[in-house]
């Protein structure tokens, strides 16, 4: 039995820009695979190649056992896709869209109707089913988008940033939906996200992508374990700061990048249990402890370890030149959504 998603050396360049630079993937049947990376990392480009929308310029990929280029139509039959920036026709109602999508997948009328009603129920949109999508909230649209991608009971589901722009409540509701879908139907899910928490919460395995390359891969637990010890961040009075920094990093572990210059951050090799000893040592030094926090290793630490940069908050910090997002032309057209220019 072949893997639901498999890729080797997958590459895509746009002119001189290499958006995806040799990605290897192996997603197993029935798992939720998280694709985590900052803006412009190449997540959407990878998804577009895996969903037959974009031709790889190097390497190969197979989805549901079919090559994404030579057997694109077979791939399309097996996948559900909720793209990051594919609008939903605002003039149509949820019901109409579901029926259209079903027909496009070759499902007959009666079946399409039944399936549409069932999916609306599932994503909690039954009451809104006969309203035009133009009047839906962002969260409702995402839920409808998810329902649309499920119309033909796909074996493999691609969700490109399904919760970006949603409020925390809607986000959690969507997570629940993806989880139960995966648990009940065994649907394999590849989900991209910029949110560490999302990957941590949902994904059984995670690949961290940065600048078109996978920099780290594994279960959230193993990735965090690779970073190892929890980080103790503390502040002492200015007079004892340097001394405390030297003594703590010498005795308890290695010094880590601290959030502010005044703070001291140490990877506690002895784990959380060493905190009492730290306090005692500071006491012996005569240092006055002003604040202290213990951070369990996070995926952000994994990202920082692999790339030397922090993931969260990186959106504003224009890591890679401002070639994304904000430079797009202003929203236009009646649908109020926008995407990269559609010219070929």
């Amino acid at each position: 039995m072949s893997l639901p998603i498999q890729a080797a050396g997958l590459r895509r360049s746009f002119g001189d820009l290499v958006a995806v630079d040799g990605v290897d993937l192996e997603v197993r049947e029935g798992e939720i695979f998280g694709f985590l990376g900052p803006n412009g990392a190449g997540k959407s480009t990878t998804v577009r190649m895996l969903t037959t929308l974009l031709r790889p310029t190097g390497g190969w990929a197979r989805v549901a056992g079919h090559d994404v280029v030579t057997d694109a139509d077979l791939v399309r039959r097996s996948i559900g896709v909720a793209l990051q920036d594919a609008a939903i026709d605002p003039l149509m109602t949820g019901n109409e869209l579901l029926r259209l999508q079903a027909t496009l997948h070759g499902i007959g009328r009666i079946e399409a109707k039944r399936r549409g009603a069932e999916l609306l129920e599932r994503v909690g949109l039954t009451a809104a089913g006969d309203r035009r999508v133009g009047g839906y909230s962002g969260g409702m649209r995402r839920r409808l988008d998810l329902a649309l991608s499920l119309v033909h009971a796909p074996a493999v589901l691609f969700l490109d940033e399904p919760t970006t722009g949603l409020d925390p409540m809607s986000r959690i509701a969507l997570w629940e939906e993806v989880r139960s879908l995966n648990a009940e139907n065994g649907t394999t899910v590849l989900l991209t996200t910029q949110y560490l928490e999302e990957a941590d919460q949902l994904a059984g395995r995670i690949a961290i992508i940065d600048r078109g390359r996978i920099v780290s891969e594994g279960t959230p637990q193993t990735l965090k374990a690779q970073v190892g010890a929890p980080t103790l961040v503390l502040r002492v009075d200015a007079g004892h700061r340097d001394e405390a920094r030297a003594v703590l990093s010498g005795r308890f572990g290695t010094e880590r990048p601290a959030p502010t210059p005044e703070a001291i951050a140490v990877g506690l090799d002895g784990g959380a249990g060493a905190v009492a000893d730290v306090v005692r040592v500071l006491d012996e030094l005569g240092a006055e402890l002003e604040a202290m926090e213990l951070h369990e290793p996070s995926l952000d630490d994994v990202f920082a370890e692999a790339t030397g940069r922090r993931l969260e908050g990186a959106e504003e910090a224009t890591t890679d030149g401002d070639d994304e997002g904000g430079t797009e032309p202003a929203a236009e057209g009646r649908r109020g959504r926008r995407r990269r220019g559609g010219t070929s």
Partner: protein
Amino acid sequence: MSGPGAVAVTTPAPGRATALVPATVAMGRRALLSIVRQPATWVPGLVFPLLIAAVNAASLSRTVDLPGFPPVDSFLQFLLPATLIQGVLFGGIVGGADIALDIQDGFFDRLMSSPVARPAILLGRLGGAMVLGVVQALFFIGVFTLFGARVEGGPVAVAVLVVVAVLLAVSIGGFAAGIGLRTGSQEAVQNFFPLVFVLLFISSAFFPTALMTGWFQWVAERNPLSWMMNAARDLVISDLAFDDVVRAVGIACGFAVVTVSFAAMQLRRRVRMP
């Protein structure tokens, strides 16, 4: 294909494209919904041609007595085909602009990541345009009849005019869809609109070419829209003749073949994996 607990879904056997007919019907329905729910895009196409006809009829009505003017009952009767064709040309742009919008905002990607038979994307739009064409034709013929401009050829001529209107709707729809597919820009489609307008005004739509002079006459006589216009006008102002029917339907078919081929070419280009 699906795991335990999944709902059994009747998808067609792998390797076969989804059936073209149901997909075309579904896409056609969507095109129609888009028309019906955006009256602002086609109501002007009903109103403005009537206004232009009213202005022309008021100012030029005496010209029917000029030597060389075709034998008509009234100037209004002379204007009926022009108004009808003008309305259809206006309305046909909508579908092309909608295709471009689909490309612009990503709905097209939704279609491309599904196994839908690709021609359905174009055929559905053309189907929508055809329905609008029928409605427009009946509307204009109805209004003109109310104001006393008869179709001399009778019900058969009316039916032929409706067929011509549908073919012209497909022609302009194909042209607009081709531009939309090529550029993926709604603005680009709309920017072609004035071209249609100019072609219309340098034609025999509002005045017989025989009474024109100079370069204007030269161009108007060679403008395919004039041929269409004259053929449609013969259906209105003279008794039913088989030749006239063949000529009108033939010219409209010719337009449709050319523009739909153009659109099909652009569709093939657009659906290639980029």
